[in-house]
């Protein structure tokens, strides 16, 4: 079969592109090297929907950030993704930084973003946890937080529901062009190719084009704190950017956890390792903003890789090769911009390559997910009447039931691995990190896919959990 569009990479950009294209009468295929969608930068970031005061005027970053931010309420409603406009505060600690805030306020105005400079007293009113030496802060009400995992997953689920094909575990390493058609990995034929391979987008580009840009990998390390009962910060707290970089942030997440990070260091494109030295440095910086951070609540540390382009702005254009589109160098605020990027690519670039006619039966919504933990007792009882499996709690820390797991498995973008399940439902995401429930979750997956337990992977295809059956169990 010949596809109209082949999308390389199912990060947030690939997922929103797939969804955007799924409204039209087109055959679309998504090719992803990993065992799940949203498995690279799109799952290891700060999860902030930036307001848009920060990117330099008249860049694609500035334009798409502001456009993207405005799209989140509707998209998250349609895709049943947690999103909340909690607002951000960029904190200044001295006069020089206050000057920078004023510059940023002007930039915000130029970018069309509503911000306000608050005094320490005003900040203390809305965010009592900040340190006393804060001089002022730039308050951006439209900034928000989002669940980045399910943003990708649900966008892809919706795209698949509307006819898109997703192929996982397909690492693209060969593209040839023959008679106006691209052939990828000798298997997939397509009229148009979109390269949104994140950190590898330069390599994918180089399969068909001369090298025109490079992607540099910059690592960011974080602490994740557990959700806890006591009060803690309610806004995303940023430091004033300086020549040393953007600095770290402290932010609640949509699941009630807290993120502290990221660091910024150049690395190779493979390593997502964390190290204590860098994390100590992150903590030191974060403590400047809030000195009472409960680090003992740390349940995890992790790292994400920024795909920093040599051109310093998003690269969104048709390449030298006709019908081959690069969507590359999508670093922060890429998550925020992604829906606007998808719209731009389809309306401004693809519309000139392919006829776009709308599908009659396109549905922008996915079926709502049941979250037992969030229901009232009566609602829980109703769900139990529909399916008894809602009564069996598998993940204790996050209170996720067997019924929810089964529903998730029945969806069009289902989890194949322990990690994919964790990203979708938070099974094993809590305090015990799966120590108590991983064995049960693994059994559920094995039963559903009718395979031996040892064939259930933690993440990608070589990431086995169980090595072999024991002597007695053959």
């Amino acid at each position, binding site marked *: 079969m010949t596809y109209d569009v082949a999308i390389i990479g199912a990060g947030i950009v690939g997922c929103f592109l797939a969804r955007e294209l799924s409204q039209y009468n087109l055959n679309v295929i998504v090719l992803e090297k990993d065992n799940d969608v949203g498995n690279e930068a799109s799952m290891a970031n700060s999860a902030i929907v930036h307001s848009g005061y920060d990117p330099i005027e008249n860049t694609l970053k500035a334009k798409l950030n502001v456009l993207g931010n405005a799209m989140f309420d509707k998209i998250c409603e349609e895709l049943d993704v947690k999103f909340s406009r909690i607002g951000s505060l960029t904190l200044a600690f001295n006069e020089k930084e206050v000057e920078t805030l004023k510059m940023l306020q002007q930039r915000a105005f130029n970018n069309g973003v509503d911000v306000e400079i608050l005094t320490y007293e005003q900040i203390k009113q809305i965010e009592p946890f900040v340190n006393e030496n804060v001089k002022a802060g730039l308050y951006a009400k439209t900034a928000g937080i989002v669940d980045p995992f399910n943003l990708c997953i649900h966008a892809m689920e919706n795209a698949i529901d509307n006819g898109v094909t997703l192929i996982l575990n397909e690492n693209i390493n060969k593209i040839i062009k023959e008679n106006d058609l691209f052939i990828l990995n000798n298997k997939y034929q397509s009229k148009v190719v979109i390269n949104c391979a994140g950190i590898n987008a330069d390599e994918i580009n180089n399969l068909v084009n001369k090298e025109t840009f490079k992607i540099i990998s910059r690592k960011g390390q974080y602490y994740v704190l557990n959700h806890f009962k006591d009060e803690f910060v309610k806004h995303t707290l940023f430091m004033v950017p300086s020549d040393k970089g953007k600095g770290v942030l402290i932010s609640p997440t949509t699941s009630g956890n807290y993120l502290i990070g990221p660091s910024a260091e150049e690395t190779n494109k493979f390593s997502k*390792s964390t190290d204590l030295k860098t994390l100590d440095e992150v903590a030191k910086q974060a403590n400047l903003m809030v000195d009472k951070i409960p680090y003992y609540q740390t349940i995890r540390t992790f790292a994400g890789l920024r795909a920093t382009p040599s051109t310093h702005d998003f690269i969104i254009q048709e390449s030298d090769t006709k019908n081959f589109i690069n969507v590359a160098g999508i670093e922060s605020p890429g998550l925020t911009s992604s829906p606007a990027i998808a719209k731009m690519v389809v309306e401004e670039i693809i519309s000139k390559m392919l006829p776009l006619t709308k599908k009659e039966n396109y549905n922008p919504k996915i079926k709502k997910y049941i979250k037992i933990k969030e229901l009232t007792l009566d609602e*829980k009882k109703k769900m139990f*009447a529909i399916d008894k499996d809602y009564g069996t709690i598998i993940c204790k820390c996050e209170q996720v039931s067997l019924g929810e797991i089964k529903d998730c498995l029945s969806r069009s973008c289902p989890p194949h691995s322990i990690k994919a399940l964790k990203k979708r439902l938070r099974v094993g995401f809590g305090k015990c990190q799966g120590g108590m429930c991983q064995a049960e979750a693994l059994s559920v997956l094995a039963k559903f896919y009718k395979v031996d337990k040892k064939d259930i992977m933690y993440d990608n295809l070589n990431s086995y959990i169980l090595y072999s059956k024991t002597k007695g169990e053959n």
Partner: protein
Amino acid sequence: MQEYEVVVIGGGSAGLAAALSAYENGLNKILIIEKNSSLGGILNQCIHTGFGIHVFNEQLSGPEYAQRFIDKLDNTSIEIKLNSYVTKIDKDKTIYYSNDAEGFQVIKAKSIIMATGCIERTPGAIKLEGERLSGILTAGLAQRYLNIEGYLVGKKVFILGSGDIGLIMARRMTLEGAKVLGVAEIMPYSNGLRRNIAQCLEDFNIPLYLSHTVKEVKGKDHVEQVVICQVDENKNYILGSEKTFDVDTLILSVGLLPYNNVLEDLGVQMSSTKGAVVDENYQTSIEGIFACGNALHVHDLVDYVTKEAMQAGLGASRYVKGLLKHGKYIETKNKNGINYVVPQKFCLQNIDKEIMFKFRVTKPFQNVKILIQDGDRTIKSIKKMFLLPSEMENISLNLSELKDCKSLSIEIMED
């Protein structure tokens, strides 16, 4: 709404003993709610022997030890709900649980005993350095995969932390044909029971690297290498001392933590052990709610769990019958060399004959005295050849020793 005299949450060794004790002390409407499909808790995956030395004078396996208590339930009115998970309790002792038979249920209790056990500290909690890979897992999970599910998690194994479960797993995996290349312990002493070091490591020539920790984990999708490094007194790496092991598995045995999400949500006062603050009857800061076993503080021997839980069961029965007195609490203080003491407070009027204090030392000691004092008055002084943080100590004091007691402190006296 169903009302019970006592609802025990968790059916491990603590929950079983607590329920039986409440029954033997005259309560009739007793319910045990257990998440798993069988009673016994963590004992079910401990197929090694070494349980019951103090309670039964025998060396039983974990499941055998549990069975002794499960058998006793037969002749009682104690009700059991399996596959049932308690998600919430309210201050008025309303309990919310669910299972696949009855769905979402709400019941009332006059008293509650929390016996929910513990969890293992995770790679995230210790901020393990290196890549996030499959093949890194906690010892208890590896034990469950092996002893309950019948799967080995790897063939070439390194172990971080000398906690007992890790030691037991070193032997168990070796017997299953895996090669355990070593155990690294960040402290200059082991954190497991002495008998486990001898029987699980020494007998199998598995090296124990004291003052060492894992500095890096390498691999692509699965663990391929573990790099360990020696540390100084401040736990800083001594660079140049790195050793690399080609392994497919890194097992963590870096400590256990009482699991009390329900109690924490309820707002019960918690202590440094991550368990509740309790009194002589193991009653928490909310009257009528009791806690015992690993949910209160981590035990190394099941026998002491059983004894503690029996006291909690007795306490609950007295509470229900209105026999607990509201006297003045005396605080127990941990001083020099003592990490924590349980119970954290006691009321003399509620002690029959004696009270047992349980505690751990902060570091190993040799030839020292344990000093128990009421202000300047020494109540008891006990000579000890060895004291290890991995081995819980206990001391009983009788009422006559506590006469007129105003405060109580426990400390280590070094010569």
